[in-house]
């Protein structure tokens, strides 16, 4: 039995597609290339197999995603995860929020920030720097986006460089994209208990 999860959690759920993913054995050469399927790597998630229906988008999306979240320089990976989490909370993407809260906790070696965010949402008790980052990312994720000049000023005041601010814009915006795939195309479900 599985059940759909509706509450924020750091425990990463399974993702169950609401439509039929591409079947690996029926994938075209272009799809296999985008899926990075090699003889030594034949494990592909249902999520990526679902996105393989639009192979042109998937081919550009994966490297873009990795560059925004992992490229060197600029904002720390931990703080980019906070930007991703803020957007995922606005859009209530339970799966994305779990993955990125978990990554934040591991990179920060601290679960208290994400515990506090899941418990108190936008009223969470955060450090001034995390508060400025979370508030900007949250407002930027709203539809229409509502971040204003004062939110950018706050980022500068707590010490973010312009390079870090641009990385925050990118990481929170990226989850405007990812949430609209993950939260719309599938359900987060509890993992089946091992028998």
């Amino acid at each position, binding site marked *: 039995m599985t059940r759909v999860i509706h509450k924020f959690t750091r425990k990463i759920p399974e993702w169950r597609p609401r439509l039929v993913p591409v079947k690996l054995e029926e994938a075209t050469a272009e799809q296999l290339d985008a899926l990075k399927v090699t003889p030594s790597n034949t494990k592909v998630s249902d999520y990526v197999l679902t996105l393989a229906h*639009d192979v042109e988008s998937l081919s550009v999306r994966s490297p873009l995603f990795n560059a925004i979240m992992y490229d060197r320089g600029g904002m720390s990976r931990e703080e980019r995860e906070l930007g991703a989490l803020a957007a995922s909370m606005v859009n209530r993407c339970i799966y994305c929020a779990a993955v990125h809260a978990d990554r934040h906790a591991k990179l920060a070696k601290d679960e208290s920030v994400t515990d506090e965010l899941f418990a108190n949402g936008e009223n969470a008790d955060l450090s001034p720097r995390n508060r400025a980052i979370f508030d900007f990312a949250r407002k930027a994720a709203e539809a229409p986006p509502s971040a204003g000049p004062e939110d950018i000023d706050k980022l500068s005041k707590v010490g973010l460089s312009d390079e870090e601010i641009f990385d925050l814009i990118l990481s929170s915006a990226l989850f405007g994209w990812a949430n609209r795939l993950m939260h719309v195309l599938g359900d987060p479900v509890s993992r089946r208990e091992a028998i």
Partner: protein
Amino acid sequence: MNISALTILTQAGVAPDSALSSVVSMRDNIIGMTQAAEEAVLRPKETGAFPHGLRAAIATRVARLAGDEPLAAYYLADAGHYAELSVPGEPGSQHQELAAILSFVDKVANQTRDAAAEDISGLRMAGVADADIVRLCELVAFLAFQIRVISGLRLMNGKSA
């Protein structure tokens, strides 16, 4: 990098050789890939159920829902005979078959958190193929990203001005 060919920079008014231009140049690769992603969702080789003009009309509509009129004008130029669909609201009789598609677009764009399993099953019952549902989501989802990068860059541009 040729700024004039990069939508996020032209829309945000990032001038070549400006201080902001040198900040964002650290992420040249990301800016280039963002343009490639625009090509992939607006002007793909495999269009499925959504020809380029219809995609441009949907992009115009999503930009309008986000309150971004300059970006809407950029996409409207390619909407052709689908231009009427770029105005939020019900489609006219000429495009009535697209009503379910457009209401899905509006919800994914601006009421993302409320998207539910019934929205996908509704499209499937309306005869939309699974591959086309993914194509439609990628289009709207990419636009959500692009709109927010432009909006953030405009704020940065205002700050440095």
